């Protein structure tokens, strides 16, 4: 009986440990903290650091977009929170937006973040009710960013300089 118990524990332990090794190589954590965060994601206990998120929001409102993105990246290191990814995309949009021309590199990064926000909010529709923002959903933001990246005849319209940033 005890022999069977040891065998069963051994098999279960080996399978669990093997999955852990595969998971480590698949996620490639860079620090022990990354390992802990990854484990939280797997266990479903992962949460965004609220303090860092609020600090990012403050910087965003002060138009310090890079610093804001940095804070949000630290608040959501695993990029698992749709709301944070939406704000990151918005920060790329606002920083990249120009009256004469947009910064394509920033818009592309914004588009990637918007896509992440969309894929993370597949189950529940994300709507950010922030009075400071004119765009409220990741889908709208994605459309805006895509439009900014497109090359059309409309780009030559001189009246374009009067348009407003959202």
């Amino acid at each position, binding site marked *: 009986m*005890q*022999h*069977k118990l*040891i*065998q*069963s*524990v*051994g*098999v279960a*332990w*080996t*399978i669990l*440990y*093997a999955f*852990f*090794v595969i998971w*480590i*190589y698949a996620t*490639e*954590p*860079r*620090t022990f903290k*990354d390992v802990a965060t990854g484990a939280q994601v797997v266990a479903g206990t992962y949460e965004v650091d609220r303090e860092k998120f609020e600090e990012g929001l403050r910087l965003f409102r002060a138009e310090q977009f890079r610093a804001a993105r940095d804070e949000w990246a630290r608040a959501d290191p695993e990029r698992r929170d749709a709301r944070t990814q939406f704000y990151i995309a918005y920060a790329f949009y606002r920083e990249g937006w120009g009256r004469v021309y947009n910064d394509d590199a920033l818009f592309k990064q914004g588009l990637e973040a918007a896509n992440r926000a969309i894929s993370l909010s597949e189950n529940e529709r994300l709507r950010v009710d922030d009075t400071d923002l004119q765009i409220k959903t990741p889908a709208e933001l994605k459309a805006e960013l895509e439009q900014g990246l497109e090359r059309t005849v409309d780009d030559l319209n001189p009246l374009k300089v009067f348009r407003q940033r959202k």
Partner: protein
Amino acid sequence: MNNASRNRALVRFVLLPLLLLTVALLGGLRVSSDDHAFIFIAPPLIALILSVLLMLLFVRGHMLELRAWISSGYPVLVNVSHTLTLLSLFFASAQAFNSVLPETGLLFWLFSLFFLWTLWNNQFSNFDARHTLRSLTVLFGTAFALKHMLLASLYAPEGSWLRKLTGVVLEGVSLGTIAPQRFAPATGYISFFTLALYVTSLVLLSPQPESLADEEAGQVVRAYRKLPPGEQRVVRAAIDAGSDGESDVRRALPAGTDLEDSGEEETVVARKPER
């Protein structure tokens, strides 16, 4: 279940897979020299090929008796456990190679060829388990010393000017294909620990997990316990009498009892010393 049997089971079913999987985990771990971050490098294809050759060598060198590890006679759980252990051994071997192979460049191919040549030659040599283990320890030890001691010191940023010069000359001769990736010194320690664990697990690996002698002894004990007390006495007398065999057993039997009447299980006990 006595202590020895329990400990053997713990080693075989828990400790051995644990050690092998730890080797599989640490074999691809490097530490960046810039920010000391972990870098996990999956085993290259050549490491898997070398691992296959090594498994063949284990079988040829009698370090592994495959039939004794996986058999239709074992319970499913034992076969599953043994299969997992063998798979762990395969990946641990691949990662042990990964640990001592340079990551890129000409040196990666030189080291790979060195391993390939050695393992291929060993396939046709007469090895027993002890020689195989000794040969592998030397093989991995040499590769470790070359990669983590010689090459690492040649390309260390804080090395002497002579070392740096040698490194530059080597790099120039090989048209820049020889420069290895630089890692923190902790990488060497991790590799050493990984190889030590790997060799330890090879020492713990028994060629026949379910020892045939143990199995037979177990059968005898089970058969003995099923006997009535009188017949158990006869068996004990036969065993105590030593290897004289049938005559002793006959003497120990009560008058009028024939040896053939005492059943199949007793016959097994009586004949065992003759083997």
